[in-house]
Every structure is written in structure tokens, then in C-alpha cells.
């Protein structure tokens, strides 16, 4: 019973840490995916007096990744039908060239305004419409949620670390005499602390398996049943197999640091 209790007392805070870290990983993945979507959906409208190639746009600002010229002939021809004495060619000549300009990365309103400034400074560009207001407000909300999650994960990790350290102190106390007796009989540090490392590594593996299983369950079972569209669409982001390696490595790092603290704290004293 004591053995099981000892394990649970260590696994529990480890689970909390790993849960917090995995939540952060998932949210980070989601935010990157959301940014990608925003970037893909976002474009500026640029009106020019002359036809312009992508290379010219790129010269004006390096973050421009592609440009599409907007086809206006069919609209102009439709317009010309309703007008007497004006040909479609006349209208075409008087209209500027319309381009949709895409960016290589997601930028905030300030950076977009800078690009706008650079573009408008060119004498061939007549006007730039950035449409930044609507998508910027939703992205700001997303950023806010991200910061709140950071704070939450940070707080959870910190408080769980305290629990791990507390458990380490209990281990330190309960293993002190055994380790000192072994040292008196000439045991090496590795042999003295082997039992602690073994126990802590088992707990780290258990915590990694449990956390991974929880997120795998969310991805493969719960999301399917939930019928929540946004989650179903992004279910791949909820758990990836590489997360097991990340969580395992973090758990191992934590136990190695924690056990080393115990071992160093148990240096030979007066028996």
C-alpha cells in the first residue's frame, strides 16, 4: 500500500506538469494552424497604373509572396453593354490594374501598415486596401486566449514542480539511512541511488503513458463523438505520436534533476 501511495504521490504532480505541457503543445499547434489559415485567407488589394510583376512587388517589400491580377474584362464588357457611346476598350484603358497581394507570413496591423506605406510610396501604385481590421480583431482574441493559457500552464507547472520537490524531500528522508549505510559499506553513488532512479523512471514512464493516452483518447474517440465541427476539423492537432517522445523526454529530465537533488542532499553524514 505504501509502495503504491509513494508512486501515486509522484505520478500525480508529474501528470499535472505533462498535462499542462501537452495542452500548451496542442494549443501552440492550433495557433500555428490558425495563423496559417489567416495567412492563406488574407490578401491586400492593390491598384496600379501600370502592369506590375511579382518581382517588382517583392522589391518594394520582401514579405509579399504572390500576386494575382484580377480579371476585369468580363465585368467591363457587361458594363459597356448598358452604356451608349462608350466602348469596353475605353473603360479598360481608364481603369487601373487590380492585384490581390498575398503575404508569406502572418503580420499584425502595424506591420501591414508599414507594407502599405512602402507600396503607396511607389509612383505606379495608386491605392492599397489592407482589410486588416476584421481579421485583426479575431486574431487579437486568439492571442489573448493564448496568453491566458500560457499563464495557466505556467502556474500549473510551477505548483506541480513544488509537489514534485515535496515528494523528493519525503524520498530524501525515507532513503537517507539506506543510502548512508550503503555508502559506509563502499557502495558507489550509482548503486546507492539506483533504486531511486528506477522508481522515478517508472513513474515518469507511467505519467507519460497516461498523459499520451488521455490526449490520444481525445483525438481518436472523444472528438468523433463530440460532433463539434472545429474540433473534428482539427482533430489531428490534438495528438501526434511525436508528443509521446516530447513528454517522455521532459518527464525524464524532471526525474533526473529531482533524483540528483535527493542524491546530492544525501551525502554522507554522521551515522
Amino acid at each position, binding site marked *: 500500500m505504501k509502495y503504491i501511495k509513494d508512486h501515486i504521490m509522484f505520478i500525480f504532480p508529474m501528470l499535472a506538469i505533462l498535462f499542462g505541457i501537452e495542452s500548451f503543445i496542442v494549443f501552440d499547434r492550433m495557433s500555428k494552424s490558425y495563423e496559417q489559415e489567416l495567412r492563406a485567407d488574407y490578401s491586400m488589394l492593390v491598384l496600379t497604373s501600370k502592369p506590375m510583376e511579382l518581382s517588382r512587388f517583392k522589391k518594394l517589400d520582401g514579405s509579399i509572396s504572390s500576386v494575382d491580377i484580377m480579371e476585369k474584362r468580363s465585368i467591363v464588357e457587361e458594363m459597356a453593354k448598358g452604356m451608349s457611346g462608350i466602348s469596353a476598350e475605353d473603360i479598360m484603358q481608364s481603369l487601373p490594374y487590380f492585384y490581390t497581394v498575398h503575404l508569406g507570413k502572418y503580420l499584425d496591423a502595424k506591420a501591414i501598415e508599414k507594407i502599405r506605406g512602402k507600396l503607396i510610396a511607389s509612383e505606379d501604385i495608386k491605392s492599397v486596401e489592407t482589410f486588416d481590421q476584421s481579421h485583426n480583431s479575431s486574431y487579437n482574441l486568439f492571442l489573448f486566449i493564448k496568453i491566458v493559457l500560457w499563464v495557466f500552464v505556467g502556474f500549473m507547472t510551477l505548483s506541480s514542480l513544488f509537489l514534485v520537490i515535496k515528494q523528493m524531500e519525503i524520498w530524501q528522508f525515507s532513503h537517507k*539511512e539506506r543510502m548512508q549505510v550503503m555508502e559506509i*559499506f563502499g557502495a558507489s553513488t550509482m*548503486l546507492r541511488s539506483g533504486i531511486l532512479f528506477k522508481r522515478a523512471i517508472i513513474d515518469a514512464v507511467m505519467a507519460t503513458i497516461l498523459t499520451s493516452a488521455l490526449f490520444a483518447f481525445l483525438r481518436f474517440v472523444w472528438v468523433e463523438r463530440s460532433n463539434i465541427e472545429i474540433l473534428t476539423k482539427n482533430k489531428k492537432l490534438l495528438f501526434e505520436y511525436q508528443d509521446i517522445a516530447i513528454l517522455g523526454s521532459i518527464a525524464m529530465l524532471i526525474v533526473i534533476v529531482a533524483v540528483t537533488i535527493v542524491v546530492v542532499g544525501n551525502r554522507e553524514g554522521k551515522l
Partner: protein
Amino acid sequence: MANIISASHLTLGYSNNDVDIIKNANFKIKKGDFVFITGPSGSGKSTLLRSFYGQLRPTSGNLLVGAQDMSKISKKKLQELRTHFGIIFQDYKLINEWSVAKNVVLPLIIAGYNVDMQETQAKRLLKHVKLSEHADRLPLELSGGEQQRIGVARALAKNPTLILADEPTGNLDEYSSNVIWDLMENANEQLDATVVVVTHRIPNIFSIPYRHLIIENKGIYEVH
């Protein structure tokens, strides 16, 4: 016979206290000796014993144990040196979460013996101290006398060249004390182990020749 312990102008004290406990002591313990070290409470008997297994370094003077200078010995050398010792404590210092059998073979575990060898030796040692039936029990389930017999068996596990005992019968009744003395006499006679025992009182019935060092006024003197 070669010296196994040799002290010249040995001074011992604790770093947190300027007072010397042993001062300018000179003595030699030869291989195969059975030595009692006596002295009043607080005279420094246990402190002296601790310096033999390297838990306390000399403040000044020389202390050679098995040709190792204990004031300069490295951690690694000390670790190696200790594997040749059998140490017995007044309060047994058994590992309470380990079985009796596992406690007994601790020196063999440290030396890297395989499990089969450990089991064979545990049976032999427990038979020697007449505790075979308790092999799988935990130390705290046994009496003080039985626990000390486990302590002696542990000390003998690897045929040590030097046995250091700190008040080994201090907490025991007369019967249990006699059993412990018998085991230590045997170790000295049959295994040719050097035995150094710190005690308040030398037992009345002791059948083998022994030396007696006494600690008095921080000095160490031989009683003839």
C-alpha cells in the same frame, strides 16, 4: 605481522568545533589483532572508530589504514577500501525495508555478486548466526539481539580484513551479548580478520587473547 592501522600524532576533532577530541595519539594495530578500545562516555571512542572507516578525517598527524593515508584518501579509494571492512553499529543500521537475507548480503550486492551467489551466501551466513528461519522477514520484526546478529552476519559477508564494531552489545541482554562476542571471536580466529571493538566494558568471559587500548584525557594508551 604488518600493521593494518597505524596512527602517529593523530589529532581528531569536528570542523564545527575547535575542540580536539583525540590529541597527539600514537598506536598501531597489527593484522590479526583483537583490540578493545574503552574509555568514559564522550571520550571519543566512536569518533576514533569513524576515522578508521574514513567518515572523519584527521585534523593533524597521520592515520594509515591498510596503507592508505586517511587524511588524503580520495573518495574513490575510500569507497574501495570500505569494501574490505565489516562494520557493526550499536543501533544495527539495518535497512528496514529490505529482508533479513538481503541485508546480510549488502556487501556482496555492492561487490556485484550475482543473485545466485547472493542467495547461497545469505543461507550460509544466516545459518552461521542461527537465523536461517528469518531470512524473508523484515529486520524490525526481530528482537534487538537478532538484529545485531544480522549486523554481524552482514559484517562477515565478504570475509573482511578488518571488522570495526561500535558498542556492538550496548543495547543487548547478557545472552545476546555472549552470542555476539562468540561470533566476533570466531571471525578473528577462523577468518583471521583484525577486529577493533569500541565498548564501555570488556566482557568477563573472553577466551582469546586481546589487546586493550584506553582513551583518557584525549590520549590513547595501551593497557598491559
